[in-house]
């Protein structure tokens, strides 16, 4: 749930929007347009962000909850993104889970976080660390998750390590 360009400028990555009532309206309108074109159920994903807006009128969790409720979409919960945001901006990821409608979570994304200077980023290039497995485990225990994807697309380890991570995910989802 983001924007990637505006005013003819391509940002080149996912950028957050201020969590406002107007942004909810725009998201809902855009999602309805997409839903008219495709028949497949739509799931929305939470992003990592490096910028927060003091002008936001609600929390990220409340924003996601409102958009999901107004569109009927599922949630693709990226547990790594949630963990990274909680570390970068000093909030409790459990509080975020308490805010969102967990019955809407259909799939999880996960991978390790990557330290870049003072912050963590989602580089898709690191082994999933224990803290992220903790988030994964709690979400898996509280939601009826139907699938999970390991988002690794760089700095590849031996394949056995990938399989091991998938096995851990499967065990946590049982």
């Amino acid at each position, binding site marked *: 749930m983001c924007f990637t360009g505006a005013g003819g400028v*391509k*940002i080149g990555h996912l950028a957050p*929007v*201020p969590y406002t009532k107007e942004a909810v309206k725009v998201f809902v309108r855009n999602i309805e347009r997409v839903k008219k074109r495709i028949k497949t159920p739509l799931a929305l994903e939470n992003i990592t962000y490096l910028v927060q807006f003091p002008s936001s009128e609600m929390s990220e969790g409340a924003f996601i909850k409102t958009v999901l409720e107004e569109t009927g979409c599922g949630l693709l919960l990226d547990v790594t993104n949630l963990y990274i945001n909680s570390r970068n901006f000093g909030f409790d990821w459990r509080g975020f889970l308490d805010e969102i409608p967990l019955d809407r979570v259909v799939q999880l994304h996960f991978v390790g976080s990557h330290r870049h200077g003072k912050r963590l980023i989602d580089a898709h290039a690191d082994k999933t660390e224990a803290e992220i497995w903790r988030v994964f485990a709690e979400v898996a225990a509280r939601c009826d998750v139907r699938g999970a994807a390991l988002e690794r697309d760089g700095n590849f380890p031996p394949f056995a390590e990938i399989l091991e991570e998938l096995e851990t995910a499967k065990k946590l989802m049982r």
Partner: protein
Amino acid sequence: MSLKEQQNLLAKLYTDAEFRRAFLSEPEKIGVESGLSADEIREIAEIMPEELHFFADSLVWKRLGEAEKFLPLTRRVLGEDFTGNFREFSQTYNPRTVKKHFEDALAFCRFLQTRKIPGPAKCAAKFEAAKLEFFGFEKRIAVCRLDYDVRSFSGAHANPAAENHEKTKKIAVWLRTGKRIRHFFI
């Protein structure tokens, strides 16, 4: 300020280093020039400059990482100067299509031809640009005249130190016949 106007301004702040610096040092002046009201300027100026810089920087790093994947030979020959040159390039160019990293890599190769860098590095960039165009645009044929034998830039026995390469005129050719692709040097 409407979300649309806010996004327009944010996109510019994230991607245009000069505009970002100007706005952060004189938000009122730049804000008024951008058509913002006092409240709108305050709203945007409340964003932490450190967050803004970090996000903008992360965008360049992401582009850099992708460019390195597209241009392994140029990266190898240019060494650490690849990063510095790319950072300068990133301030002059912003890709516009969905194939943004491909577009970025090609434009960076063109940018390197205008830079004062060792001949082998320019040659590696020229070679990889021709290769990218052949595969990316699904060309039937691509021909590239080179001042060095780029094959000596890579491989187990290659010396990546750019100044150690001797000039040798070569022509790299890529040919597509049906599903078969041939690549050779003359």
